[in-house]
Each structure stands twice: as C-alpha cells, then as structure tokens.
C-alpha cells in the first residue's frame, strides 16, 4: 500500500516542471495558426470580396461618395476563419500570428477601417449601368451596408455597475 503510494509519488516527480512560463516568456503559436487579420491598406483595391465571404459579417462596405469606399471591419466578432485572406485577389489581407487581443476598452479596440480610393470615369463618374448584380456591387457608389455593433435592438436593460 505505502510502497504503491511511494511509487506514485516518484512517478509524479519524474516529469519535472511542465508549466509554461507564458506571460513572462513569449510562446509563439504553430505555423498554420490564424490570428488577427491584418490589412495592407495600400494594396486594397476595394473589390469587396472579403465582405462577401465573411461568415460573421464582420467586414462591411460603405460607399461614402463616388471616389471613396469605406471598408469597416468589426473584428470583435471575427472568427478567424481566414476566408477573407483566401479570397483577396491582391493578398492585402494576411492572417498574422497575433493572438494577444485582449483589451479593457471594449469593442472599439478590435475595429479596423480602411478608406479606399476608387477611380471613376473622369467625365461623368458613372457612365454605364453594370449588367449583373455582382458587377453592380463592384461599382463604387452602389453599396451601403448597415454597420451594426450588436444584434437586434435589445428589449433588455443592461445591468448598471454598482
């Protein structure tokens, strides 16, 4: 009885220290890890492919005027699937290894916006009506997604902090 307990104790001692020293030493994730999706705003052409495939609808497009397309990404609800990076024709979106995304400021910290300059016809701005709905979405000045932080209008009162 005691011998078996002793044996168990020795077995438990054998692995030594296994605990990660994580917050004090960096611990990089594995090779294919998908972290914070970073946008190279210089490369973005404003095609809106990322907004079309985003399962969380975290990427939204607003055409402010004929020349400016605003791409708003509310990454607080991003699920890090990497589809936007897959679909981007210019490889403007890369999934970085950044996973330390915790914040105390709220959702604002996870917000990212890029205003893309869209070239239009120099003479009239909009010379022709595109044939298909897909082409129409590509046309600047057409798309205006509703940017919603929460879900539906909540009928519940939030709890006030004491």
């Amino acid at each position, binding site marked *: 009885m005691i011998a078996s307990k002793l044996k168990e104790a020795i077995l438990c001692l054998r692995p030594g220290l*296994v*605990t*990660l020293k*994580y*917050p*004090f030493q960096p*611990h990089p*994730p594995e090779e294919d890890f998908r972290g*914070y999706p970073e*946008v190279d*705003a*210089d490369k973005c052409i404003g095609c809106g492919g990322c907004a079309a495939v985003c*399962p*969380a*609808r975290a990427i939204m497009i607003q055409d402010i005027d004929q*020349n*400016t397309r*605003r791409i*708003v990404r*509310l*990454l*607080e*609800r*991003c*699920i*890090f699937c990497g589809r936007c990076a897959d679909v981007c024709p210019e490889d403007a979106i890369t999934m970085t290894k*950044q*996973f*330390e*995304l*915790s*914040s*105390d*400021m*709220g*959702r*604002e*910290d*996870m*917000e*990212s*916006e*890029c*205003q*893309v*300059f869209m*070239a239009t016809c120099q003479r009239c701005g909009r010379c022709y009506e595109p044939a298909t709905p897909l082409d129409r979405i590509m046309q600047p000045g057409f798309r205006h997604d509703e*940017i*919603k*932080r*929460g*879900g*539906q209008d*909540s009928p*519940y009162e*939030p*709890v*006030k*902090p*004491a």
Partner: protein
Amino acid sequence: MFKELCQKAFPKSLWVYHTNTGACNGCDIEVIDVLTPYYDAERFGIKLVGSPRHADVLLVCGPVTRQVVPALKRLYDAVPDPKLVIAIGSCAVGGGIWFDSYNIVGGADTILPVDYYIPGCPPRPEAILHGVAMALGLVEKQVEPVHLKQLPDRPESIPVESETP
C-alpha cells in the same frame, strides 16, 4: 485609474465563476485548459469556484441568448462586490457569427458591464492567460483601432479620424 483600483481591490487571489450563456463549448474547454498544470492559471491565484457567491470574477462565454438573460442578471447580482466580468470568445465579446440571430441579444456587454474582453474563436489558452495577466497588470494591451485612408496622389495610406457606431 481603473487598473489601479483593480489592483487595490483584488490584492490576493481571484476566484472565478465560469458561466456559459449559450456557447458551443469551445471557449469552455479552453477555460478548463487554462486551469490545467501546463498553462496553470492557479499560479496567479485564479481558482474556479462552484458558486457565484464565492466568486470575484464572472467569466462569460458565448453569445447571450434571450432565455439566459434573466438568469445572467441574477447571477451577476449574486456575485459580491467588487466584481469583474470577463467576456471570453468572439461570441461573448461581440456576438460572434450569431450577432443578428433571432434568439441572441448580442455580446455579454449588452447585458452586463464587461471589464475585459478576450476575442478569439476560441481564444488560445495563452490568449486567456494574456487577458488575465492584463487584468492583474502584468502585461500591456497589444491591440488598437486602425483607421486608414488611401489618397489618390500618395503611394501610402494615411491615418484618419473616423467614427464607427
């Protein structure tokens, strides 16, 4: 200032109560993972307790469903002051992919005053540890909002002030 208050109010161990408000269990498993010897959140004094009345911190995982709202409010009231709420996972932070579902109210901060947010789907155990360490004042925040604008006559985008609702 809030950080200093936190450090004054919680000089010793944080006892956490873990609640699932409609999560898929991914975040719950990661929370349990953080408490294993490999990640070992107990070296910071984090201890999982079985009753909200013993807890200092409420861990909220998952989008808040309509059905869980009254229970969540009662749960929050059951935690003695001073208390912290940590939202873990994309769902609890902003509603996740369910943000506009008919039965989802939204993230945890539509109901509770959330103090710390840990996004991720699910967050890595290291990410949860980072959030906890940030709450304890051991590490710095690493994310910030990005607002950039392209200009036709410049090769590089410039930072811009902009409001998002």
